[in-house]
């Protein structure tokens, strides 16, 4: 496997979606290619960082307002249904 092929298969390699022979070819290439090891490692770190830090939540004031309004609508929809 060459560097450009490794890059092409990188996401499938990370997601463990490759056939066994391609996994072995990728591992063989990675064992001898420093640059591809760096690209693999920094891509995995990118995913990890977003997974850990990217889970933004609704600010508290907006959250409470939404909860109150939606709860009222939800419970009222029961009355509407009954009418």
């Amino acid at each position, binding site marked *: 496997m060459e560097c*450009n092929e490794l*890059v*092409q298969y*990188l*996401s*499938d390699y990370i997601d463990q979606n490759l056939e066994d022979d391609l996994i072995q070819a990728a591992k063989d290439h990675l064992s001898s290619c420093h*640059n591809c090891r*760096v*690209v693999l*490692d*920094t*891509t995995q*770190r*990118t*995913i990890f*960082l*977003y*997974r850990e*830090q*990217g*889970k*933004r*939540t*609704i*600010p508290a004031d*907006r*959250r409470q*307002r*939404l*909860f109150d*309004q*939606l*709860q009222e*609508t*939800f*419970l009222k*929809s*029961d009355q509407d*249904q009954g009418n």
Partner: protein
Amino acid sequence: MTDDPQLLQQLRQRSPEAFQRLFQQYSDKVYRLAVSIVQNEDDAEDVVQEVFIRFFEYLDRFEGRSKIGTWLYRVAYNASIDRVRKQRVLPVVDEDISEMPLPKQIHAWSDSHRMTMDQIDLVGQLEAAIRTLPESLRMVFLLRDVEELSTQDTAAVLNITPGAVKVRLHRARLQLREILTGTFAETGQRNE
């Protein structure tokens, strides 16, 4: 994901506890998707409200062919896109897999990254980087890598093929890696 059939049944009985579970489980997810498209908190809040109200209206006809989460994401995506389309034209993304960009920035992060974690606004850097992606790549990355949906569910939300999900995810990861490598290497060098 939740135990959808049980939650659905309780929601149909208009159980306040079931509403709390629904809101707790999905409001932040819908909000994150919306804010990443509409790019402001007021519109994102409106989208959350719209999506949940539409779900309540649809509740008694919801057949469970799709998961609650997938349904909410799909409606949120469409509602957000509709809002943005009224304000600007969305660019068409290049789906050509043969033109996959090769990595240019090849620097290990290990030292500079750990050293700078506490010194930089990490969340701000991540948000700035992801904002540079076209909306179509950003959505796939957000659903697959942040929200951890499967390729199939992501395809269902965005109404694209699983193959397109994989191509876009790969592009998004490589582009973000490129930007963040530049950021961390640069910051690390300044600290040396």
